[in-house]
Every structure is written in C-alpha cells, then in structure tokens.
C-alpha cells in the first residue's frame, strides 16, 4: 500500500535534509506506529505520504513515494485525498473555520468532492459515531475542548474514507505518529523509528522500543522498560507493556 524508495527531501531554504535515504514498505491493512524524538522527520514523512511534500512545501525531493498505486510526487493533491488522509498534529490548524457545526465541518471535505447528499450524510454519521462525537454534532467546532477538536479533525478525515490514514482506525493502512509508547506497543503491529531524518529502527514493537540505541537516540521508553532495565535482571527481554512488565516481575508478586 505504501512504497518508499530512497527518499531524500530538503525543505526550501534549509541546508540539512529533513529525510535521508528512507526506504520503507507498508502492506495493506497494517497498523504501524512512527516514533522518534522532536525533529526526527516524523511530520515530514507524513507530509511526503500525503503529498504536502512536495506539492505544498516544494523543496528538493529525490527517490519515490507510492501510495495506493499513485506516485505522490506526480499526482496532484485533489487526487490524493481519496487515497490518503492526514490528521494534523495540531487540530486547530485543520478546522476549516467555514462551518458552524461539528456535523457541517465533517461534511466539508465530502461536499468538496461533490458526493451525493445521502452518501455525505451516511459517511458523516459513521465518522461521528466512530469518534464518539455524535452527541456534539450540533455544536460549533470552536465550542469543543482541545481534545474534542482533535477528534473532530480525525472524524473529518475518516469521513473521506481514504485508503491510507496517517493516524487511526482499522481496515485501513494506518501510520500513527506518537510518543505514547505504551499505547503504541499495545496496538501497533509494527514500529518504525526515525531520528535525524534517518530510519533507525523498524520491526516488532517490543524489539524496537527496548533497543538501547533507540532509547539513547531520544525515542524514549515506558516506565516499565525503565524500571526493568534498572532492576538489573540479566538475560530477560525488557517489557514495554503492562502485561509484559507483570511477566518480567513475576517472581516479585505478593
């Protein structure tokens, strides 16, 4: 579903590339998490998947990015929106400001695709239901709390039913950027780690999230891994989730 080959990208007027020689394949339906410290290139990679790089940001791009058979650099943004949806890190930047209610806001993108009315209503209802916003449908987007606005941003994208979602929910190929490592380890099938614009880890959540080199690179670690590491038990695999931590400290039960 996602095929990236030797992707290197530099924003305009900058010296260092934001992404360097990244190659990556994500099969259809996989849920993978993208982790890494600030400035690792996580957001840039999301922009590259969804076409904002290079269509909006310009800059210098080499290598190829294919999403759902479309070559992103050679497909214009209106054609990419049905293939890949990106939920911005900052939801406040995503709300259109052109609609008065939550329901209308979720319908906004669909109206722009020129879908029939019944279909729009159906997809809006489904997206509101999935994100738990149904009771808030009549509210102004600006009368929502920060967290609710984030869910609204997600609902607006889910309603477009893209094939790849750079964030949440199944049956789609999902790339989620997160610092919440316990959550990532519990739900993601695969974890991809970036640091300094490079791919530094890729694999099973447990392997990637306990790799000392990645902890060192600023990816972070759960308190479970941290406690287990410092407890100094040699030879046992470090835990990332609660269940794994309970197993690790099994002999210390009361």
């Amino acid at each position, binding site marked *: 579903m996602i095929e990236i080959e030797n992707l290197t990208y530099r924003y305009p007027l900058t010296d260092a590339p934001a992404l360097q020689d990244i190659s990556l394949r994500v099969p259809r339906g996989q849920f993978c998490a993208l982790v*890494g*410290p*600030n*400035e690792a290139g996580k*957001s840039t990679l999301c922009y590259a998947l969804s076409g904002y790089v290079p269509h909006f940001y310009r800059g210098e791009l080499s290598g190829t990015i294919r999403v759902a058979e479309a070559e992103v650099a050679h497909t214009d943004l209106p054609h990419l929106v049905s293939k890949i949806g990106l939920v911005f*890190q*900052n939801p*406040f*930047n995503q709300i259109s400001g052109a609609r008065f209610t939550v329901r209308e806001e979720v319908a906004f993108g669909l109206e722009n695709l020129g879908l029939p009315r019944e279909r729009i209503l159906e997809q809006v209802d489904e997206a509101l239901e999935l994100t738990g916003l149904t009771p808030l449908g009549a*509210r*102004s987007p600006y*009368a*929502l*709390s*920060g*967290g*609710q606005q*984030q*869910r609204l941003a997600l609902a607006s994208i889910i309603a477009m039913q893209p094939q790849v979602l750079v964030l949440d929910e199944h049956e789609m190929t999902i790339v989620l950027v997160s*610092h919440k490592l*316990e959550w990532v380890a519990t739900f993601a099938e695969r974890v991809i780690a970036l640091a300094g614009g490079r791919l530094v880890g890729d694999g099973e959540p447990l392997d990637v999230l306990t790799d000392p080199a990645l902890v060192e690179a*600023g*990816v*972070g*670690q*759960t*308190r*479970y891994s*941290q*406690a287990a590491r*410092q*407890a100094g038990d040699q030879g046992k695999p470090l835990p990332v989730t*609660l269940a794994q*931590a*309970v197993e690790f*400290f099994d002999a*210390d*039960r*009361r």
Partner: protein
Amino acid sequence: MQIAVEQVSFSYPGGVEALRGVSLTIEAGEAVAIVGENGAGKTTLARHLNGLLKPTSGRVLVGDWDTAEQSIAQMSRRVGLVFQNPDDQLFERTVRAEVTFGPRNLGWQPAEVREAVDEALARVGLSEAADTHPYDLHLAQRKLVALAATLAMHTPVVLLDEPTTGQDAVSVERIGTIVDRLHAEGRTVIAISHDLDFCAEHFERAVVMAEGRVLADGPTRQVFTRGEVLAHAAVEAPQLIRLATALGWEAAPLTVEEFLARLRELRRSR
C-alpha cells in the same frame, strides 16, 4: 499567593456548561496536577485562574484580587498561563521578541528584562534559537517558546495547559525539571495534563475533574490509587501504580526510584 475557587460555575455563550460548582483552594507554592478526560472543564478552569474567563456564578480569588474585578493585563502579573496550543499565544518575529514581550510590558528596566529573557530561554533550552522565527520551529519547540514567554514574567503562579503533549522524551524530562525548579523556588505550579506518569513524578497534589466537577482532590499518591474515580474520569493510573497493583503490592510507587526501592526491599526480605 493563595488561589481560592469558590463555587464557580461557567457556561459558554453557546450554552455549554463547562464548570458546575467547582471549589478548590491552592496554597502558595503548591504543585498541583489537574487531570480528566476531554471536555471535563480543565482548560475552562485554567482560564478562570488568570481571569481570561469570569465565572457565571461564584468567584475566583488570586491573593487579595477577585478575578472578576481585574483586567487580564493586571492578572498576568500574578498568573502566567501557557496555552495548550502555542499558536494561540505566539505572534512576534523572533523567539527573543516573543519572550521579551511579557516582561517589557511589566515596566521593568531593560537590563532586568534582558536577564529574565536569557534565563527563561536557557531554562527551556532555546538560547541558541533566540533569533529564529517561532514558526520556523517545530510545534514541540513552539510549545517551549510559549513556556519561556511565561517563565520570563516571574509570576508567582505558573499554569501549564497540557505541557507534555507532543513532546519527546528529552523535552518531557526538561519540562519536568522546570516544574521541579519552580516548585523549589516556592512558586505555585498548576498543570493540566493527560499524562499521569508525568503528573505522578512532579506534582504533590492531584485534582480529578469530570463533567465540570471536581471528583477527587488530594495527595497524588492517594488520588492516583483510586481506581473507580480515575475510571469515571476516563484517565488511566500511572504505569508504575498499575504495575504495582498487578503485582499485588500495597505500595503505590510514583517514580521509577520508588518502584526500585520497594523492589529491593521485597527481594531482601525473601
């Protein structure tokens, strides 16, 4: 400087009732975490503490000031609020100008302003980015600029709305250190957060909110072990408390150090 929230209710103009009879007293120098799910009223409460919002009923006192009788400019001398979304707050062309804006408006001498700005930038680790345009920084760094802009004003009360959201491990640790230092300096630090691990490590008192009300308020260790209250507020206990509970321990460790100390004790007694 004491903060007293007395029976405060607040409805937004559209009719949303965000606070329903909240009462809370925070003494000078306390470090308090306010937790709860989306829409619980946390941000609305924070905006009452610096006078951005005035209660529909009830009152908020910050020291001897009733927030309803003070201008926001006046309130900002006592309570510094760091917004959840830094873009609501940043408007200058450079990081330095942004951080200078607050203290300059307090009427300090230029040398004092400069010193406060340098010190605030150093605390958040952005000294070298002083001449950068805030929007050339990443969102996570812009959050640190917003924090520095508040720190530079030397307010007795510092309010942080979701300080760790979107921050990497290194920045979370840095923010934790900043909180600890403010607390050690005797300033009141109040944070709104979903990150209970962070709250457990840096705040001595926790307030749980849901549906515009206070569900629980007390020492962090006690509050974060009240499973039913946390479940009602749709927040998850900190990782180490969940682990200790799953292992059948009576102890409720708030930090990795506390967890390891208890572990060593248990292992010695075996």
